[in-house]
């Protein structure tokens, strides 16, 4: 479970803004969170809530003229935002890695799989070409791609979606990172392949002792993989809890709505309730409501919710909620 020792990654007051022609968009607006060594942290929310942007901000993969990152991101004692370009580069792919949602477009079509894995290894581990290539083959074997030797010489378009995602995982884990951000790793895959990939990730996490931040909108995956969960909405963290507590006793109305909207066969018989939905849609970045951001859609909205933003309340060990209730 979670390691009570010092956290691996500490994010404080993270604000990521985008300067657009129509105004400033606060994609991430004041986020504090920690990631501990050896855990799987789930980051949940609808599209547009800022979860991907948070991950991209840590690795500073956003184009910094339109984007602007404020706050502090401490990794092993160093503020990543203070590092220059070269400093960040040393961390990327090395200590912190990332895998992306669309394996089809996230792999370079004109380079072989082997080369795409080997180049990271050559760079960070200072291996020679043949050594790095052998390492790449080994990584492919570790992610259970059949005939890794041949596959390494092939191009991405020859592989199926599941295999491409495995290749991406191989690429990300090739330098034994301490932290892996997985941005919707299975969303683009078939359900059966999803299960395979998730199991693979679980196994590799044990072997490599990597912490994973699993970004997704699918609560089923969270239930399966995560030990702790953070729920985001419209750029804010609205709830954080260990996974079982979250599912058993969600405190924030948004979390309750999310859990209620998961279709369960026999629900009506069991719980006497129909499929819930959260009315309305996520507000656009330029039309944020005043007060609590969720209040227009909240079934238990009160007067204070409309005017003031709720502060975070700590409810217990690694539990907090941002709500007036």
């Amino acid at each position, binding site marked *: 479970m979670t390691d009570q020792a010092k956290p691996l990654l500490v994010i404080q007051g993270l604000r990521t803004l985008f300067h657009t022609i129509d105004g400033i968009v606060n994609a991430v607006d004041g986020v504090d969170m920690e990631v501990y060594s050896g855990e799987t942290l789930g980051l949940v929310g609808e599209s547009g809530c800022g979860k991907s942007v948070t991950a991209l901000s840590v*690795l500073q*993969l956003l184009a910094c003229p339109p984007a602007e990152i404020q706050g502090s991101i401490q990794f092993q004692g160093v503020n990543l935002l203070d590092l220059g*370009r070269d400093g*960040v*580069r*040393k*961390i*990327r*792919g*090395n200590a912190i*890695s*990332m895998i*992306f949602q*669309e394996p089809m*477009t*996230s*792999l*370079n*079509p*004109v*380079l072989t799989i082997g080369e795409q894995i080997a*180049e*990271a290894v050559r*760079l*960070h581990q200072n291996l020679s070409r043949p050594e790095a290539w052998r390492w790449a083959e080994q990584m492919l074997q570790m992610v259970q791609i059949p005939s890794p030797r041949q596959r390494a010489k092939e*191009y991405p*378009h*020859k592989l199926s979606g599941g295999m491409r995602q495995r290749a*991406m995982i191989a*690429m990300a884990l090739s330098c034994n990172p301490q932290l892996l951000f997985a941005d919707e790793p299975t969303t683009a895959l078939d359900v059966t392949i999803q299960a395979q990939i998730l199991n693979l990730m679980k196994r590799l996490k044990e072997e490599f002792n990597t912490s994973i931040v699993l970004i997704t909108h699918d609560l089923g995956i969270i239930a399966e993989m995560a030990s702790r969960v953070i729920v985001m909405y419209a750029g804010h963290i609205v709830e954080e809890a260990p996974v079982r507590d979250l599912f058993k006793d969600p405190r924030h109305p948004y979390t309750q709505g999310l859990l209620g909207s998961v279709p369960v066969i026999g629900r009506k018989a069991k719980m006497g309730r129909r499929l819930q939905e959260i009315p309305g849609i996520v507000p656009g970045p330029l039309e944020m409501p005043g007060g609590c951001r969720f209040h227009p859609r909240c079934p238990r909205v009160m007067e204070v919710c409309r005017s003031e933003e709720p502060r975070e309340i700590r409810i217990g060990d690694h539990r907090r909620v941002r709500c007036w209730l």
Partner: protein
Amino acid sequence: MFHYIIKRLISTIPVLIGISLLLFFMLRMLPGDPAQVLAGQMATPEEIENIRHQLGLDRPIHVQYAVFFSRLVQFDLGRSARTQNPVTQEIWARLPNTMLLAVVAITLACLLGIPAGIVSAVRPYTWMDYLVTSAALFGISMPVFWLGLMLVVVFSILLQWLPAGGTGSWKHVVLPSVTLASFVIAFIARMTRSTMIEVLSQDYTTTARSKGLKEEVVIVKHALKNALIPIITVVGLQFGLLLGGAVLTETVFAWPGLGRLIVDSILARDYPMIQGAILVFGLLYIFVNLVVDLLYAYVDPRIRYD
């Protein structure tokens, strides 16, 4: 890969046949009677008939075409009405000159245009970008022959550094090839810029960066290699267009090339020559497109295994 080459080669054949047909009929449609033109004003009807018989114009049209085509395959394009020399000979004498200009121009264009486009794409909306895009915009808006004339005014008349026309030394090559290259450099720079911008916004570029690769590596190894695919296509296309733009440039600089030959032939109504020269141009263009397609397959692995 081999399959692909064969397929491409085969598909050019109908186009070649089509072009020969097109030319054949186009020239038959010309106003005026070639027999009469050849015979002259004072000829008697018998003399005209004679010439017509000599030229084979009294035979049915498909026979004429068969004769035309069979001669074509033997590289016999007839004789120039102007100089009475075989068409193939005249063309062969001029072709290397035009090729020289075209090759120099394309090389300049790639050496200058592609890097300019890359710089522009990597640092968009900076002064470098504005400089490149403005220069490129000017380059494609300028009439090539006007640029040539202006260059002559500056470099030949005012500064007297370079000759104004003709051939001879490397100095004679400079102005014509720079003039010819101007449009192409501009076009390629623009093309490179837009392609690179698109490639740099692709997911795999973000992935490459997330591995901690140096930005130069990301640009050259990851982005450029992808961008080259459409760029090569464009370069090939431009090479073909250069063969056409050569017409104007060669006229300005009195360069003894294929382009000028075509113009002079058109003005003199030298039909066999026009026919032959245009045919050769068409062949060259098709050949260049073929080479481009092959290069394309080499750079883009997705095509190779089709």
